[in-house]
């Protein structure tokens, strides 16, 4: 189920990120260790993660992921290994929240895309997903919430 999309102006939010450019086939193996490295770096620096993990896709190209895997933080993080200080940008974004299991995410993005087109919105190249309620929170997939964000050019 998709909540009614809204257009919001976001402000810069500090985060810790790992930038990955990998073939789609490698994503499943890379994801877990990257999250581990991210959380270990934060713990070592005494910085608290704020909210859930996000994936900020910088460039969409077939078969390749070019994205930042990150989490918002309570304070600035120092570079350590692959972990870098980063941010979620200040931008005008179209935002919606999808509720349900991950199998429904493709259709959710499809529906969200139609809404943006119907409203005459021009999409920027990047986008981010925030996995606000997911397997880390509850096994009940009906309660999972994924926030979809698409920056807009106009």
């Amino acid at each position: 189920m998709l909540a009614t999309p809204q257009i919001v102006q976001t402000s810069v939010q500090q985060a810790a990120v790992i930038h990955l450019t990998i073939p789609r086939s490698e994503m499943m193996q890379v994801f877990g260790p990257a999250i581990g490295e991210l959380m270990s770096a934060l713990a070592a620096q005494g910085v608290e993660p704020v909210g859930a993990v996000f994936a900020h896709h910088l460039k969409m190209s077939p078969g390749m992921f070019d994205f930042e895997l990150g989490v918002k933080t309570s304070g600035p993080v120092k570079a350590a290994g692959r972990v870098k200080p980063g941010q979620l940008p200040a931008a005008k974004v179209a935002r919606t929240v999808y509720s349900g299991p991950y199998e429904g995410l493709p259709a959710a993005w499809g529906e969200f895309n139609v809404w943006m087109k119907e409203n005459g919105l021009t999409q920027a190249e990047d986008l981010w997903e925030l996995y606000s309620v997911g397997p880390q929170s509850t096994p009940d997939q009906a309660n999972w919430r994924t926030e979809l964000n698409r920056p807009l050019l106009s």
Partner: protein
Amino acid sequence: MTMRMTLPNAETRAAMLASGMEHGMEASYVRLETMI
């Protein structure tokens, strides 16, 4: 009132965070690829 949740260690927390979320990312991307 402040509530704090204490987890065993960073690795355990990371495993909790990561388990299954990558499927969401994968699912989304399959669709997003076709929108380029």
